[in-house]
């Protein structure tokens, strides 16, 4: 993975004259200098016997003995049950640094999704039972994938006005938008007395079936991009 791109953002020049000059600026500050490598928390990597390693892997292991490695964040574990998407979602749900609360809400949501699906399973006939998905993790991943927009809108300044130009989104922006819309929908559009696990499990199940307000928001985004199709040539990248 290109280590440069996620820490630095190219300053997009806004005028046509200096279109090709790219200046690098720090977007998120890090206390680590560039020679620090990311930590490897995968147990399988260390369990491979020496005979099975290829030349590159042996070389890399030698390098890791002497190179500087960043400290692993507290939330990153070598657990077999760890999921980077779920960790990202928990971080986005967190408020005020209260990771304990965010994590417990996430686990309660997964439990709620599971219990609802089990209820449906027991109530369904034998043919329908094969179609009902009971794994909360597949439901979560599929729901977020269904909510990801394919194309997005970016404001571009031309002739003194900002135009909403349709633009293909990178993968991380799409994942971010899906999660953001899901959380905003649950936080703001529901009755204030309902608890987050209840709201979130309901929204996830609806998105899994390609229904619900979050999917509608994705479709609205697509429609606006389709409507502004004529402005597509304002994009230069």
């Amino acid at each position: 993975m290109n280590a440069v791109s996620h820490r630095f953002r190219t300053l997009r020049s806004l005028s046509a004259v200096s279109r090709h000059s790219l200046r690098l600026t720090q977007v998120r500050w890090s206390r680590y200098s560039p020679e620090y490598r990311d930590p490897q928390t995968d147990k399988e990597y260390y369990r491979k016997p020496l005979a099975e390693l290829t030349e590159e892997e042996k070389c890399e292991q030698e390098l890791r003995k002497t190179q500087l490695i960043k400290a692993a964040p507290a939330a990153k574990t070598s657990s077999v049950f760890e999921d980077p998407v779920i960790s990202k979602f928990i971080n986005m749900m967190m408020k005020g640094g209260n990771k304990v609360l965010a994590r417990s809400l996430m686990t309660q949501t997964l439990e709620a999704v599971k219990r609802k699906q089990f209820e449906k399973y027991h109530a369904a006939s034998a043919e329908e039972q094969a179609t009902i998905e009971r794994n909360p993790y597949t439901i979560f991943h599929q729901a977020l994938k269904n909510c990801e927009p394919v194309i997005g809108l970016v404001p571009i300044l031309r002739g003194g006005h900002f135009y909403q130009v349709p633009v293909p989104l990178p993968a991380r922006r799409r994942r971010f938008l899906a999660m953001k819309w899901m959380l905003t929908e649950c936080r703001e559009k529901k009755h204030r007395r309902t608890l987050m696990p209840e709201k979130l499990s309901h929204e996830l199940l609806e998105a899994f079936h390609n229904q619900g307000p979050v999917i509608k928001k994705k479709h609205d985004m697509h429609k606006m991009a389709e409507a502004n199709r004529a402005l597509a040539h304002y994009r230069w990248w």
Partner: protein
Amino acid sequence: RRGVSFRLQALRVCSGRHPCAVCCPATMLNRVTRLVPRARQLDPGRFLHGGPQGPQGLAVHLDDRVPDETPRAGSRPSEDDPAGAGEQREDRHYRIPLQDLPTVFAHGLPQYQHYVCQVKTFHEACLLVRRPALELLRHLDGTNFAHPAVRYVLYGEKGTGKTLSLCHVIHFCAKRDWLVVHVPDAHLWVKSCRGLLRSAYNRQRFDQPVEASSWLKSFKTANERFLSQIKIQETYMWNKRESTEKGRPLGEVVEQGLTRVKNATDAVGIVLKELKSQSCSGAFRLLVAVDGVNALWGKTTLKREDKSLMAPEELALVHSLRKMVRNDWHGGAVVLALSQTGSLFTPRMAYLPQELLGKEGFDALDPFVPVLVSNYSPEEFERCIQYYLENSWLQHEKAHTEEGKKELLFLSDANPGQLERLCAYL
């Protein structure tokens, strides 16, 4: 051994062997098992038909199901007779038939909502048969009803399974047609009670109409058939116009308590007193099962009119329950479970009887048979995981692997409560 003294004058069969009993209660239990003859004729298990309406939280989804009684082959055991026509094996999941749920869980297990949710999700109530419960059942089987009631105290760390062992014992006794007096959580009687009234019977004590009437309702559902058989032995005057004469069935006292909520606490006291005095006659066998019994001798958070804190003995319900738990009656047994979870002003890591009961409670319950309920053994853990896998509760693909199981063992430390919480979201 700190805090666990053990004088068993009730079990006269073991006279003269006290010094070894004091140092090791576990071997004492084994010794008692050998001494008490196990040739007692076992009653054939009869299914109790529950009342027409069960508690709303539990029986809503279960009423229409026909329970499947046949034991399944392979690793999916489901013995439905708690005592079994032979040895009831350890490390097996024993299933309570759904008809019995309204009677066994008439009170709805207020302090263990996770298990209630599990019963609702799986559409079956399964308990893992474990050693502490098995030992208790064997002792209850061999009880000598001429001797004073033996008190068994289930203790252990948080989440080890004391409440469910108690439920297992209750179901066992209910199947054997014992009359079960079950207090699901004594802590609920000493905290957050609204509507305290001065008792009419004794001006120093306080009544709790809400708690008493809800308990009476569940008691009625659980023991419907006994209420018409047992006749009271004294006349009770409720007020100038209402009274219940001698010789009327006990059901009338319960009805009076339910209709006139002000008299509910007194009705509870009368019911307990009558049951205690009549169990000696041998018409029925009485099991007193109280969870969170350390609440009876702890502190309360209830205040009198002048905003000073009340002591538990000033509550009429606690007073009558304390009398019930004494061993001055015979014809049954008393099974108690300690609980730190709902208790007030006790340290979180306390679990031993001495720490939770305090000096007063320990002296009141002394002598008792302590039964330690500990975390899962490796076989029990494996069995529990198998049960979850068979029910497809563990949906995460890594949970089926050896790595996943090792990680679950590490994270939960074989604690049943923790394992249940972990498996809920995996």
